């Protein structure tokens, strides 16, 4: 109970918010709009899973928003050229993995600080995309949206796909040796090395995994509408890092899990539609999200001081 206090408290807050909505604005739970909103968050969840792994490994990647845009536009351009969808999906995931590998190599191979490396790749990728695409939307062929399925089938595919990724990675992190290695490296890289783990290798791989997941998320976003906006994904890094931190993953590494990140993401994603339903002015949206993040960080700080250095 005490060990999972943060995850449980976030989940409890989320349930409280949902309960409040059920009482004060039951229209929030209409199936179709809710499914559309949840589907919009499915790609974000995938990126948040990857980000949680990177942060648990005591690194950070703020270039995911730019990676997301590049993969999305890349996939859109290939689809517009008439590539079959399975190939486009493969290309998006592959491109994401390559972008992740570049970050991973710079961080693990050259031992550069990840915040600076990914700041650089964030700007470079974004500007490169601006230069290449000049801000123009990519219009997609007809059969791309919802993989050519009908709308609700397509939405369920995306939602279930993101939940499958969450479940697989969540279990792997907890029960597989490779998953335990991520925690080991994040808590104490030197001790992990002495225990026979190769910390740089683990670090490299979590970046590659995050990149691949970001590519997957990008294609999951592309198939949700008939056109891709190059700016899509701007600010995504803040959204997922916030979700992960609110969900109880320690920014200093070594602690936290994906279920917490999932709850954190849902809680933050609830804020905007909840305000719309309660007819509260939009000015409060960012303030409330900020307060939630602050609360989470303060909770971590207090806990750490109590448990001593």
């Amino acid at each position, binding site marked *: 109970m005490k060990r999972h206090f943060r995850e449980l408290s976030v989940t409890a807050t989320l349930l409280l918010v949902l309960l409040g909505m059920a009482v004060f*604005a039951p*229209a*929030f739970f*209409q199936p*179709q*709009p*809710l499914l*559309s*909103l949840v589907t*919009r968050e499915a790609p974000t969840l995938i990126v948040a899973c990857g980000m949680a792994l990177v942060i648990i490994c005591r690194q950070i990647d703020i270039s995911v928003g730019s990676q997301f845009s590049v993969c999305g536009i890349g996939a859109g351009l290939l689809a517009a050229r008439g590539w079959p969808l399975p190939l486009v999906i493969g290309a998006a995931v592959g491109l994401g993995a390559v972008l992740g590998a570049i970050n991973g190599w710079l961080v693990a191979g050259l031992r550069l600080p990840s915040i600076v490396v990914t700041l650089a790749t964030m*700007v470079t990728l*974004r*500007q490169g*995309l*601006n230069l290449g*695409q*000049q*801000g*123009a*939307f990519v*219009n997609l062929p007809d059969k791309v949206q919802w993989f050519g399925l009908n*709308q609700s089938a397509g939405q369920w595919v995306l939602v279930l796909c993101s939940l499958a990724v969450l479940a697989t990675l969540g279990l792997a992190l907890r029960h597989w040796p490779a998953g335990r290695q991520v925690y080991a490296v994040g808590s104490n890289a030197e001790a992990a090395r002495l225990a026979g783990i190769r910390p740089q290798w683990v670090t490299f791989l979590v970046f590659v995994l995050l990149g691949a997941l970001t590519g997957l998320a990008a294609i999951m*976003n592309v198939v*949700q*509408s*008939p*056109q891709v*906006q*190059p*700016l*899509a994904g*701007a*600010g995504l890094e803040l959204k997922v890092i916030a979700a992960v931190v609110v969900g109880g993953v320690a920014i200093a590494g070594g602690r936290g899990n994906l279920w917490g990140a999932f709850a954190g993401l849902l809680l933050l994603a609830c804020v*905007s*539609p909840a305000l*719309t*339903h309660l*007819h509260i002015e*939009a*000015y409060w*949206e960012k303030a409330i999200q900020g307060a939630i993040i602050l609360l989470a960080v303060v909770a971590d700080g207090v806990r750490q001081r109590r448990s001593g250095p």
Partner: protein
Amino acid sequence: MKHLRLGVLAALFTAVAAVLTAADAKLMIALMPKAKGNAYFITVKAGAEKAAKELNVELLFDGPTDSNAAKQNEIVENWITLGVDVIAVAAENKEGLSTALRKAQKAGTKVITYDADALPDARTYFVNQATPEGIAYGLTDEAARLMNGEGEFAVITATLTAGNQREWVKLIEARLKSTYPKLKLIAVRPSDDLKDKAQSEATALMSANPNLKLLMAICTPGTPGAAEAVKQAGKAGQVKVIGLGLPSENRRYVHDGVTESVMLWNTADLGYLTIYAADALAKDQLKAGATSFKAGALGTFEIKGDNILLGKPVIFNKANIDQFEF
């Protein structure tokens, strides 16, 4: 050997000096968008490039990646250091940017604004793409027409702090009060210039307000975003979509009957006119008190006070949208 080195140095020096004077002779105009990834500003840039070529001036184009007021200040500071002749900006934040622009004026750089104005004392002219009244009243009139003069509608903006967006909302409210008392604006929601966020906002707006009859997007990514939400909700025709936008980004939704009409001025002309005005300003050809101004191939434009007016916005709908390529 020593002489040879000196000779080479001298030659190099002359070459550099020649390049520098050549660069000096060419007027340097710096053009800043609110966000350079935005398709809207890309078409502005295309028009600007055309004008720059005709006038034989050097055009710099730089701005924030996303709508970021602080980043705009930084770029203006850089341009002051660089010594450009004219700065033409679309201000993300009126008050915020004005300080930096005044500094530029003090340093001898001419300043004009386009698309979104700064404070009047921080620039000489504002190239007004359509008066705020023209846009706000145009959209409100179109909404009233589609809603038969009564019912609830909601607005999707870029950000709640963007100066022009705030002004438009105020004017929309004023127009409702004076002309359409039965039209009710029930919410204003931000989209952060993201189509996807606009879609989520529109989805929530529709489920929270079952009587909603129309969504009005006053930023270009908001219009296709709102349309996708209406399409997914299966409410095409029941909840109408109008907004600012490029024809190319809205064509499909207009043909599907989801989006009723899209409004925009000719953005390439805006860029073209801005560069012509900047050039004339630098050459002192634009005198205070002038009431008209001739800009190359586009002809003569009206000047009202310190505003150079681009003219009336264009409405694109099913009937005419296919005639426009951009």
